[in-house]
C-alpha cells in the first residue's frame, strides 16, 4: 500500500503540486465546509445550505496575485452576497422579476470581468450564492436570516483559509524549486537527446512542462506575497534570485534547442560537433547533480571545468576560420556559433544556480 501511495504521489501529486499548495488549499476547503456545517448545526435546517454554500464560495473564489488581494476578494464575496441575498429571496417569488434581476446580475458580473481575474472569479461566486437564493424564494425575514447564514459561513471559511494552517514559504518554494530544476534537467536531456534524432513534439512537451514548473515557482512566490522580481537588480534576494536563475536556465535550454543541430552535414565541423556532444553530456550530469543537491543527496559539481570545455569549443570554432570561407560555410559557422554560445550561457547560469542552491542548503 505504501509503495502504491508513493508511486501515486511521485507520478501524479508531486509534479502538479510539489509544495502541497493546492492539496493544502483543497484540504482547507473541506475543513471550512465541515466547520460551516458544524456552526450551522444549532440553527434550523433550512439555513444549513446557506452556511455551507457561502463557505464553499469563499474557498472557491481564491483569486488575486497577492495574499492581501485574495483576502479582499474573499471578504467581498461573502459580504456582497450577504447584502444581496435578502433582496434575491424576495425577488425570487416572481418569475418575471427574478428573470430581469438575474439578467442584470449576470450582465454586471460578466462585464466586471474586464477589471481583472480576481473580480471575474469573485463575481461568479457572488452570483452563484444569489442564484441559489433566487431559486428558493422566501419572505424578507427568511432572506435576512439567510444573509446572516451567508455572513457566518463566509467568516468561518475566511478564518480557516487565512488564519489556520499557515504555509511555510521556504519549504514550499524549495519543493517547487526541486521540481523546476528536475524539469529543466529533463528538458535539457530531451533537447540534447534529439540532436541526432529530432523529435520536436517531445521537445515541445517537456519545454511546456519546464515552463509551467518555472512559472509555478513564481506563482507560489506571488501567492505568498513575495516579489519574484525583487532580486532583478542586485540578485541579493535569495528566493527571487533563484527564480531569475531558473528563468535564465530555461532560456538557456531554449537557446540550445534552437541552435543544436548546427552544420549537420558539414565535414569541416565534424570535430567541433563531437566535442560539443561531449560537453553536452557533461552538462547533463551537472544538471542531474544540481537537482540532487536540492534534495540534499547530490554532490557539488565542477562547473568551472565545464566552462573551460566550452571555451575550448569556442576557440576551436574560431580556429576553423569558417567566417572567411564564403557564404555557405559562414552560415554553418553562425549556426555552430549559436549553439556554442547558448551552451556558454547555460553553463554560466548553471554555475549561478549551484551558488544559489548552496545558499539554499545552508539555510534549510
Amino acid at each position, binding site marked *: 500500500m505504501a509503495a502504491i501511495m508513493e508511486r501515486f504521489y511521485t507520478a501524479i501529486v508531486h509534479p502538479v503540486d510539489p509544495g502541497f499548495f493546492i492539496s493544502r488549499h483543497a484540504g482547507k476547503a473541506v475543513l471550512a465546509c465541515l466547520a460551516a456545517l458544524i456552526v450551522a448545526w444549532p440553527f434550523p435546517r433550512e439555513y444549513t445550505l446557506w452556511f455551507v454554500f457561502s463557505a464553499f464560495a469563499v474557498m472557491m473564489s481564491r483569486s488575486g496575485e497577492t495574499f492581501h488581494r485574495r483576502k479582499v476578494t474573499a471578504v467581498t464575496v461573502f459580504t456582497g452576497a450577504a447584502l444581496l441575498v435578502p433582496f434575491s429571496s424576495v425577488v425570487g417569488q416572481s418569475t418575471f422579476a427574478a428573470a430581469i434581476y438575474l439578467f442584470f446580475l449576470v450582465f454586471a458580473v460578466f462585464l466586471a470581468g*474586464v477589471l481583472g481575474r480576481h473580480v471575474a472569479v469573485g463575481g461568479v461566486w457572488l452570483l452563484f450564492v444569489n442564484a441559489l437564493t433566487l431559486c428558493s424564494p422566501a419572505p424578507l425575514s427568511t432572506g435576512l436570516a439567510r444573509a446572516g447564514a451567508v455572513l457566518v459561513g463566509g467568516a468561518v471559511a475566511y478564518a480557516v483559509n487565512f488564519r489556520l494552517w499557515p504555509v511555510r514559504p521556504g519549504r514550499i518554494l524549495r519543493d517547487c524549486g526541486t521540481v523546476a530544476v528536475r524539469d529543466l534537467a529533463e528538458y535539457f536531456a530531451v533537447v540534447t537527446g534529439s540532436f541526432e534524432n529530432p523529435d520536436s513534439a517531445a521537445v515541445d512537451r517537456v519545454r511546456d512542462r519546464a515552463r509551467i514548473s518555472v512559472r509555478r515557482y513564481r506563482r507560489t512566490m506571488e501567492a505568498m506575497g513575495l516579489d519574484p*522580481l525583487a532580486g532583478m537588480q542586485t540578485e541579493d534576494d535569495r528566493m527571487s534570485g533563484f527564480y531569475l536563475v531558473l528563468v535564465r536556465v530555461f*532560456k538557456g535550454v531554449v537557446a540550445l534547442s534552437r541552435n543544436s543541430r548546427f552544420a549537420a552535414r558539414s565535414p569541416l565541423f565534424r570535430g567541433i560537433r563531437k566535442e560539443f556532444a561531449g560537453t553536452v553530456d557533461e552538462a547533463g550530469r551537472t544538471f542531474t547533480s544540481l537537482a540532487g543537491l536540492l534534495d540534499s543527496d547530490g554532490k557539488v559539481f565542477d562547473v568551472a571545468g565545464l566552462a573551460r570545455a566550452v571555451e575550448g569549443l569556442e576557440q576551436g570554432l574560431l580556429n576553423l576560420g569558417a567566417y572567411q570561407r564564403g557564404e555557405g560555410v559562414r552560415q554553418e559557422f553562425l549556426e555552430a556559433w549559436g549553439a556554442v554560445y547558448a551552451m556558454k550561457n547555460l553553463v554560466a547560469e548553471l554555475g549561478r544556480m549551484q551558488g544559489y542552491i548552496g545558499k539554499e542548503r545552508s539555510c534549510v
Partner: protein
Amino acid sequence: MRMKDAVLRLRRELTTASPAFRHALRAGLATSAAFIAARMLGLSHEMWVIVSVVVIMRPSLGGTLRFGRDRVLGTIAGALVAIAVVLLTKASGVWFVLLLVVSFFTTLFLHVVHYLGFVTFLSFTVVLGLGIVFPEGWKLGVERIWDTLLGGGIGLGAAFFIWPNRAAKGIDSRVASSLNDLGALFRILGKSYQAGEVRPEEIVAARRKTYDSLNGCREIFSEAAAEAGLSRAGRNDLSRLSAVLDKLYDLLMSMDTVVRRVSGEGPPESLGNDLHQLLETVDLEFAWMTDYARGRKEETTRPNGAAALAEMFDRIRIVRARGDLEGHSMEHRTNLSAFLYHVYAVVQELENGFELLKSYRAGRTEEDSSFQA
C-alpha cells in the same frame, strides 16, 4: 486598480461595439432564459440549469463549445458513476462518508488543475451527498444530467444566435497583436544591444506582454478549431503558424541572454550604423507583417530583412579585412556573432510566418467564395 479607473473602464465597455459588453449581454439573456425555462418546467433544482449556463459561456463560440462539451461529458460521467455507487451501497456506512470526503477533496484539488476532471468529480460528489440526505437521492443524479443538458443547450443556443462571436473571426487581430508584441520585444532588445545597456524591467515587461499575447493566440486557435467551418488545411496552417510564433518568442528569449552579456559595450563603432540599419529593417518587417496579419493586401513591398543581413555580412567582411575589429575583445566579437545569428534566425522565421499567413489567407478566401457560391 483605483475605483475611479475601474468606473472609467466599465463605462468605456458600455457600448455594443465592445466584445465584453456583447458577451455580458449574451450571458445575461441566456441565464434569464434558462431560469424561466427551469421554472416553467417545474424543475426541483433550477440552480443547476443556471450554473450550467454561467460556467460554459465564453466570449467566443469555440470556447463555449469546448466548455459546454466538457461540462456535459463530465456531469454525465460523474453522475452515472455516483448513481451506481449510491444504488450499490444504499448510501450508508463509514466507507461511504469517507468516499464522499475524499471525492470532495479531489474535486477541490482538480479545480485548479483539470476542468473536465473537476466537473466529473463535482457531479460525483453532489450526487453522493444527495444520496445521504434523501432516501431516493440517486434520482437527483438523473435530474442533474437533464438539467445540465438543458442549461448547456440554452448556453450553446445563445452563443450561436445572439451576436455569434466566431473565434475564427478574431484570429487576424490576435496574430497581428502577437506579431506587434514580438516586434516590440525585438526592438527593445535591439536598442539595448546597440546602447550596450540593459534595462531588465523593460525587457521583462515586454516579454510578459508577448507571452500573454501568444497564449491568447493559442487559445483563439484552439477555439477556432472547435468551431465548424475551418478547413483541415486552415487548421494545419494555424497550428504551424502558432509554432512559428512560439519559435520567434523562443528566439527572442535566447537573444535576451546574448543582449544581457553586452556588459556596457555596444557594437563596434565601425559597424554601428549598419547594425542600426539592419535592426530597423527587421523592425519594419515586423510592422509590415503585423499589418499584413490585420488583412492589408500585399501592395507595399515587404521590407527585406534577408537582404539587409547579407549587406551586414558583406560589411563585416570589409571591416574585418581592414582590421577594425582587432581592438575589440574576443568576448565582444563573439557576442556580436551570436547576436547576428539570432537576427538571422528571426528573419528566417518571419519568412516562414509570412508564407503560412499567405497560405491561410488564400485558403480562407477560397472557403468564403465557395460558401457564397
